[in-house]
């Protein structure tokens, strides 16, 4: 063991290249003879395509081709894991169903000419009535996508409606109900999507660079689309500048540049413009629903009910319909309470929704934790006490959503948060400020997350990868190789987009082998070189692929111990690894270096009798259960009731992701998650008009959070390891987002409740806060 590598805040190995601007992204890739694609996109929420005239575009010097649905119909619609509802054609086929839908692809000698070409394609549209409002769409007054019979394409439902009815009828029951919107968001990675395909007819193979979280899955999907075996498709996700779930799809543009490269015999690249990123990449959230708590005046919750609708957008893509199911898994949160939870999946004339940081879980926890706060206010009880009164206290805990949560200690976590924030002190300060006419608010939320996907049983519930040509069940792998010079190369099947895998995985392998972190190089994202893996999403990489890598490293260690023992004429049981080599326990002077072990390993005649040459091992891991991280957050806000302006003064987060490999990276993940959750609470909103036009289609009107908008976060942790994986780790990528939006809203309501305000829909922009206060005569 290299002492202290696990749990150490080692600086990220990724950063020197990135902060010097030397990291290579898909758009940095250039190939000889490369052409550029650009897309003609629908300006209508819904319209019939009467005709497309590309002659003027084709007449532009430098334009090589213009493709429409007629050219690509055979390649079929985009694949989806949960194929309920109309799938997306690669190019709009006779009708467009949302603003931004791709209608034609122009391929030209440079990207400027390609853009000019898109402006010269004349598309004759006959506009049709669109529907974007969720409740309006659910009524089927207008069918959004005529391939569906009803806009409501599925309903997820769990729990016990009878138990809720019984609670409602019980004596002394207090019922609190609030209708709330969890608004549609645009993920907005700093690096927009980009894809570069080189289809080589001579080799019968394709290489596709793509800014993706799921390179192996994209390779499988490209193989299915183009009839190629997996060993003839190479997908490379080089540096990826943020994904947040939005790059967890096989996208039409990936197929279309591959198609164009095949047709034209040249590499073809497309890089999304920022404006395209607002309409062509998936959106997230988009729920409306009524949450209800039935309880008693002593804070006991008798039942929780949610009746909601979720916006699918116009087409079903990868996990679109399954996103609310992820919310369902965590519907009861940390509470041992009966529930009845129902959500309809509704098609609208808007871009498709799919996984966005948290994916269903932030929405589910938002409704639960908002209504618990409203209940606490109704009965006049401290919101922390109401939560404590209803916690699961024993684990494993079987929830009312049919899940089994393996581990947790919710009370200790919340108590530690309240201590960190000096909750009682804050309440006193709030009271004093109130006397001075200042509106300070304190908001609380707890959460559980389900992640680390995951258990093979999930494949039956809709979470499968079969549609993209991969094994159905989730899995992860890691290959650890010690090179002849004693350094290690680790190859993993993940698709990181900023999560620090190269550092964290180096720590795991360094810990097992005693090779320094600097000498462990982690490779990912190239399907030709890296072992099978399904990618990075759902806070799963460490729990699954990390566990596989730890297992692989353990195999290498076992073998290396035998080699070292052979070299040192000792027993393998007495070999210890440290400081770049192996020694006999108790005799640190009897040492062989990793270079010496490796040199012997690659010469089989010098190995013990019967041992195979080489020094590498692969492992594939599929956990028995998901992991269940949890935590509690607290926000302090001040509201200017004259203007409605909200200032987030302080934010405290107490997260529990089990064991921690690199605390700095974990803190960084929490910071980013908080920023996005807080931003949903205060800033972001994808706003459409009734015709389906996106009114927030540029960063001028769609504010993404910056460090300047946020306070310095105060973080701490509790540590409750899981036993579903060998390292006891749970996942931290989405926790910050899942815990934060409702924490901020609860704080704002706490600040203005004395003026009669009970709820304000997000984002809590000043105008909404002011209107809510004003409406109540405050």
């Amino acid at each position: 063991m290299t002492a202290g590598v696990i749990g150490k805040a080692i600086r990220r190995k990724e950063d020197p290249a990135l902060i010097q601007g030397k990291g290579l992204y898909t758009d940095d890739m250039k190939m000889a003879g490369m052409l550029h694609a650009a897309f003609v996109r629908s300006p209508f929420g819904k319209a019939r395509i009467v005709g497309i005239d590309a002659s003027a575009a084709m007449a532009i010097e430098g334009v090589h081709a213009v493709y429409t649905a007629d050219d690509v119909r055979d390649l079929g619609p985009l694949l989806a894991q949960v194929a309920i509802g109309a799938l997306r054609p690669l190019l709009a086929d006779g009708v467009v169903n949302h603003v931004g839908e791709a209608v034609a692809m122009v391929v030209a000698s440079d990207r400027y000419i390609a853009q000019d070409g898109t402006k010269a394609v004349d598309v004759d549209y006959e506009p049709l009535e669109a529907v974007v409002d969720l409740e309006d769409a659910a009524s089927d007054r207008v069918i959004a996508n005529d391939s569906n019979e009803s806009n409501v394409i599925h309903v997820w439902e769990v729990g016990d409606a009878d138990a809720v009815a019984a609670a409602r009828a019980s004596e002394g029951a207090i019922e609190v109900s609030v209708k709330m919107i969890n608004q549609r968001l645009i993920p907005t990675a700093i690096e927009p999507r980009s894809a570069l395909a080189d289809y080589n007819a001579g080799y019968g193979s394709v290489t596709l660079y793509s800014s993706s979280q799921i390179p192996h899955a994209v390779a499988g999907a490209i193989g299915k689309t183009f009839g190629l075996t997996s060993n003839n498709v190479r997908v490379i996700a080089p540096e990826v500048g943020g994904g947040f779930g939005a790059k967890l799809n096989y996208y039409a543009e990936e197929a279309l540049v591959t198609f164009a490269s095949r047709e034209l015999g040249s590499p073809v690249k497309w890089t999304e413009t920022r404006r395209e990123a607002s309409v062509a990449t998936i959106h997230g959230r988009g729920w409306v629903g009524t949450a209800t708590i039935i309880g008693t005046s002593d804070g006991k919750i008798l039942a929780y009910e949610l009746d909601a609708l979720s916006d699918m957008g116009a087409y079903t893509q990868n996990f679109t319909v399954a996103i609310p199911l992820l919310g369902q898994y965590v519907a009861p949160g940390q509470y041992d309470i009966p529930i009845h939870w129902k959500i309809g999946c509704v098609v609208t004339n808007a871009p498709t929704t799919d996984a966005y940081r948290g994916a269903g879980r932030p929405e589910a926890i938002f409704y639960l934790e908002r209504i618990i706060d409203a209940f606490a206010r109704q009965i006049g009880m401290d919101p922390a006490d109401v939560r404590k009164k209803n916690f699961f206290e024993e684990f494993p805990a079987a929830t009312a959503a049919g899940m089994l949560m393996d581990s947790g200690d919710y009370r200790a976590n919340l108590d530690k948060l309240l201590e960190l924030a000096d909750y009682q002190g804050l309440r006193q300060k709030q009271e004093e400020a109130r006397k001075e006419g200042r509106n300070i608010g304190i908001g609380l939320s707890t959460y559980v997350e389900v992640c680390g996907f995951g258990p093979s049983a999930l494949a039956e519930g809709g979470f499968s990868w079969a549609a993209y040509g991969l094994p159905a069940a989730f899995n992860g792998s890691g290959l650890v190789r010690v090179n002849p010079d004693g350094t290690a190369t680790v190859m993993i099947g993940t698709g990181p987009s900023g999560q620090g895998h190269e550092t964290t995985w180096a720590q795991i392998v360094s810990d097992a082998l005693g090779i320094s972190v600097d000498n462990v190089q982690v490779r990912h994202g190239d399907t030709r070189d890296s072992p099978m893996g399904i990618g990075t999403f759902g806070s799963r990489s460490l729990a699954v692929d990390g566990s596989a890598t730890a297992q692989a490293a353990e195999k290498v260690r076992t073998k290396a111990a035998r080699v070292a023992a052979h070299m040192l004429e000792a027993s393998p049981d007495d070999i210890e690894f440290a400081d770049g080599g192996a020694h006999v326990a108790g005799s640190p002077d009897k040492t062989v270096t990793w270079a010496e072990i490796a040199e012997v390993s690659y010469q089989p005649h010098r190995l013990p009798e019967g041992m195979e040459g080489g020094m590498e091992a692969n492992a594939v891991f599929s956990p028995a259960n998901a992991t269940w991280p949890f935590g509690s957050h607290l926000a302090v806000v001040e509201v200017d009731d004259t203007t409605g302006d909200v200032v987030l003064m302080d934010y405290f987060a107490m997260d529990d992701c089990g064991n921690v490999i690199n605390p700095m990276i974990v803190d960084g993940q929490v910071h980013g998650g908080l920023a996005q959750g807080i931003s949903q609470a205060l800033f972001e909103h994808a706003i459409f008009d009734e015709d389906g036009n996106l009114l927030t289609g540029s960063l001028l009107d769609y504010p993404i959070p910056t460090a300047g908008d946020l306070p310095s976060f105060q973080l701490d942790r509790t540590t409750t390891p899981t036993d579903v994986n060998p390292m006891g780790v749970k996942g931290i990528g989405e926790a910050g987002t899942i815990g934060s939006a409702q924490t901020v809203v609860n704080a704002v309501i706490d600040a203005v409740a004395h003026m009669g305000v009970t709820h304000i829909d997000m984002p809590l922009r000043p105008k909404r806060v002011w209107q809510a206060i004003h409406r109540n005569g405050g």
Partner: protein
Amino acid sequence: MFPRQFEYVAPASLDEALSALASTPGAKVMSGGQSLIPMMKLRLFSPGTVIDIGRIDGLADIVEKDDHISIGALVRHNQTASDPTVAAHAKALSQAAGWTGDHQVRNRGTTCGAMAHADVAADQPAAAIALGATMMARSSSGQREIAASDFFVDALTSALSEDEILVELRVPKASNGSRSAYDKLGRRGGHTDYAVAGIAAWVNVGDDGSVTDARIGVTGVGTRPTLAEAAAASLIGTDGGEESIRAAAGLVTDGITVIEDLYGSVEYKTHLAQVFTERALQQALAG
């Protein structure tokens, strides 16, 4: 995000720039490029030629003159915001420049560029009109002065002719009794981003404490930065106390057509204009 093809020229002198502008129909002048380039990338605006004045010497200085402060065409927002002379004589402009855009924009964008761009929700134009500033517009045939209050014609439209460059902003120096302040609510709350509503207040206070003169510049709520004349007039001759401030605030949108947008209804923006009129006047009168 790909502009149409355009010609780019970067003249070394102002005379060269002016003659290029005179001889190139449809050319557009660029200083910091923080508004022009995004608009071109979105193809909202596609000039045939961009004349980059960024390499011309002698335009990047703030100079204190006898009766005014001269702010050159290439003075960046951050320069305006951090200049002690501007802060001493034109606090409203100093504050408005400091709350323009974000750090990157403030390091590249220019005060004169923000004037010439004439965005409906820009901060510094409100300060310029409240301070009674003068725009110095030059063409190859000479130079003319345009009062700031006449400069902002409509949304994204200034009084500059096609062949003119805004070479300098002249802000009158403060006398003993004159003071100013700017306050706003930004789109992300606080002082961030474009103004949902922003008010620049300038007052002159006599020896007896009464308000002898006042100007109030309004931005964000209408189609152009505008002087609130009735509000300012109501303040003149008063003691500048709470009641007179409130009375002035109540008149601030008189004559202004308040426009609803994503950030506020007409009612809300009118209310904000009144609130920030009170706040800016309180700050200005407090000195």
